[in-house]
C-alpha cells in the first residue's frame, strides 16, 4: 500500500502543471466506497498529496449509500470545510450533493463518476465512451484479422451497473466500435454484471452456455477478468494470443491485473483512464478555487484516456497506472 501511495504522490508531485499554491485548507473527501483497484489508487493519490502539501483531509466513506453520502457532505459543510471532493454513488445523487455544497458556498469537485447534470461543480471525468471505443477498435481489428473473409463474428459485452453513467458510456463506446464493422458482427450479447463478480459469474456462464461460439469479449471493467477466466477456462476458451481458439478479449480501467494479462497474452487491450491526470486535475481545480475565493466553480475537465494494447505495451507500459502498480508488486501482496 505504501508503494501505491508513493506512486500516486510522486506522479502528482512531479507534475509541472500542478500549482500547489493554495494555503493550508481543510478538504472533505467523500467517497462511495473503494471497491476496485482504480478507486483505491485514486483515493491514495488524492489524500496523500493533499496531506503532503499541508492540507487537512476529512475522509468519509458512504459504503455505497447515496443518502448517507449526502448526510456526510452536509456534516462536512457544517464543520466548515474549505472544499469538497466526492466520488459519488451515482449520477443523480451527485447532482443533489453538488447543489448542496454550492448552495452553502463550498466549492466542490466530482472525481471520475459524473453527475447527470454537468453544468455545476468541478467535474473531472474520463471520456468513457471514447476510451472504450479506442480499446474495442483494436479488438475488432484483431478479431477480423483472425477471421475468414466474409465470416461474421459474435461479440459479447459485460455491462456494468446501468445506473452508473460510466457503465453506460462504456457500453456506448463498445457499440460505436462494433457498428463501424456492422456487416461483420452479429448482434452483440449483453451480459449484466451490476459491477458484482458473483452476478457476472452466473450471467456470463449462462450466456456462454447459450452461445458457445463467441469471438470477441469486452468487459466494462478490468476487475472482472478473473471472473471471465473462471467461465472460460473449464470450456477451453482461456487461451493466449498465440494459441488456437483464443477469444479476443479486452476491458477498461487499466488495472494491474489487466497489465499482467496483456503481458501473458490472455488479454488483447484495455482502455485506460489516466488516473494520475484526473487526480491532479481535481486537486488543482479545487485548490485554485479555494485560493481565489470562488465558491461555485463550474468546469468540466475531461480525461481523454487511451488504449493500451498488446502492440503498444512495450512502448507505453508505464503510461498505465495499473502497470506502475504491477511493477511495484501490487499483485504480489
Amino acid at each position: 500500500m505504501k508503494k501505491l501511495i508513493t506512486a500516486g504522490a510522486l506522479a502528482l508531485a512531479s507534475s509541472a502543471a500542478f500549482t500547489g499554491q493554495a494555503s493550508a485548507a481543510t478538504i472533505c473527501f467523500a467517497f462511495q466506497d473503494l471497491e476496485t483497484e482504480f478507486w483505491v489508487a485514486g483515493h491514495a493519490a488524492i489524500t496523500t498529496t493533499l496531506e503532503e502539501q499541508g492540507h487537512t483531509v476529512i475522509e468519509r466513506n458512504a459504503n455505497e449509500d447515496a443518502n448517507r453520502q449526502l448526510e456526510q457532505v452536509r456534516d462536512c459543510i457544517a464543520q466548515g470545510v474549505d472544499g469538497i471532493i466526492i466520488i459519488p454513488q451515482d449520477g443523480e445523487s451527485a447532482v443533489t450533493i453538488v447543489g448542496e455544497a454550492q448552495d452553502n458556498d463550498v466549492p466542490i469537485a466530482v472525481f471520475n463518476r459524473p453527475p447527470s447534470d454537468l453544468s455545476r461543480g468541478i467535474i473531472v471525468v474520463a471520456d468513457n465512451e471514447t476510451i472504450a471505443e479506442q480499446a474495442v477498435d483494436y479488438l475488432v481489428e484483431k478479431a477480423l484479422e483472425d477471421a475468414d473473409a466474409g465470416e461474421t463474428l459474435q461479440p459479447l459485452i459485460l455491462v456494468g451497473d446501468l445506473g452508473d453513467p460510466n457503465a453506460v458510456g462504456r457500453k456506448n463506446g463498445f457499440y460505436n466500435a462494433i457498428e463501424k464493422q456492422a456487416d461483420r458482427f452479429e448482434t452483440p450479447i449483453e451480459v449484466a454484471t451490476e459491477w458484482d463478480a458473483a452476478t457476472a459469474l452466473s450471467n456470463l456462464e449462462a450466456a456462454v452456455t447459450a452461445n458457445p461460439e463467441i469471438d470477441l469479449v469486452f468487459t466494462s471493467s478490468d476487475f472482472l477478468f478473473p471472473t471471465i477466466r473462471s467461465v472460460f477456462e473449464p470450456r477451453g476458451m482461456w487461451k493466449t494470443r498465440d494459441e488456437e481458439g483464443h477469444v479476443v478479449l479486452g476491458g477498461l480501467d487499466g488495472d494491474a491485473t489487466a497489465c499482467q494479462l496483456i503481458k501473458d497474452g490472455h488479454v488483447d487491450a484495455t482502455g485506460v483512464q489516466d488516473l494520475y491526470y484526473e487526480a491532479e486535475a481535481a486537486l488543482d481545480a479545487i485548490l485554485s478555487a479555494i485560493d481565489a475565493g470562488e465558491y461555485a466553480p463550474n468546469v468540466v475537465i475531461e480525461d481523454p484516456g487511451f488504449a493500451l494494447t498488446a502492440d503498444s505495451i512495450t512502448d507505453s507500459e508505464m503510461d498505465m497506472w495499473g502497470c506502475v502498480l504491477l511493477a511495484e508488486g501490487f499483485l504480489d501482496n
Partner: protein
Amino acid sequence: MNTDLSRLALRNATILIFTAVLVLFGLVAPGFLSPENLFNIVKQSSFIGIAAIGITFVLLTRGIDLSVGSVMYLGPLIAGFAMRDYGVGVAGGFAVAILAGLAMGAINAFFIVRLGIAPFIVTLATLFFFRGAGTWMTSSRQFDFDREMLDFGLSSVAGIPVPILLFALALVIAHLTLTRTTFGKQVYAIGADPEAAKKAGIRTGTIETGVFLISATTASVAGFVLISQIGRLDVAFGEGREFDVIAAAVLGGASLFGGVGTAWGTAVGATLIQTVKTGLIFSGINLYLQPIALGLVIFVAVLLDSLRAWRLQVSQRRAIRAEVAD
C-alpha cells in the same frame, strides 16, 4: 377426487411454478433445458441457496439476519488469510471459514439472546461491523487466492461440480435437522408460538443461539464456495446479498412471521430465482427489462404462494367442519 387434486396442486404450488418456468423458457430458448445448462443453474444457485438454507432456520424462529452478505465476505477473507499466512490449504481454509462463520454467528447470538436486543438491530449493526472489519483487513484491496482454490471451485466429483455437492449436502443436513431432530421441532415450535414454547420447557435461548450460528456458518460457507469459483475476493463481494437470500427463502415458502418453511422449499426458491435469471439471458431479453421481469416473476410466485396458503387454510377448515357434521 377433484378436491384432493386441487389440494395436492396447492401444496406443491412452488414446484408447479418452477416447472412452468422451465417449460416456458424451454419453449422460448433452445438449449435452455440442456443438461449442461440445468447443471449450471443449480451450480449458480448454490451460492445463494446454501446461505438461504441457513437463514431459513432464523426465519422459522421469527428472527432475521441482515448480516449474511457481510459474513459471506468476511468468512472467506479470514480463510484466505489463514491459507496465505499459515499454509493451511483449501481443506483447512474451508474449516477456517466454518469457524469464522460460527464466531460471527456467536457475536450475533450474544447480543440477541443474552442482551435481548432485537435481531434486526443487532444484525444491521454487524452487517456494517463485519464488512468494515474486512475492509480494514484488506485496506480496500482485493484478495487473490492461490491457484489451488480455483482448482477446488472448478472441480467435480463423479462429474458433479463441487458447489452442487456442497449445496446438496447443506440441503440434506438442514432437512434432516429440521424434520428428524428435537432441535428442528423446537425451532418450529418457537416460530409458531414463542411463549407457548417457553412454557412447554423449551430453552428458547439455546435454540435461538443455534439458528444464528447456523445462519452465519452457512453464509460463510456460501461465500467460500462462490469465491472458490473466481479465485479473487473483491471488497464489494456479498453486498446486498442478504435480500437475495431472504427472497429465496420466502419464495420457497418460508414465512417472515415464523413457524413456516422448509429447507427443501428454500432450495427450490433459490433455484427458481436463478432459473428465471438464466432464462432471461437465454431469451435475449433487454438488460433494462431483466430486473423488471425477474421482479414480476418473484411477485407472481409469492402471490400464488400466499393464495395457496389461504386456499389451503380455507379448504382444511371446510374439511374439519364436514368431519364434525358427519
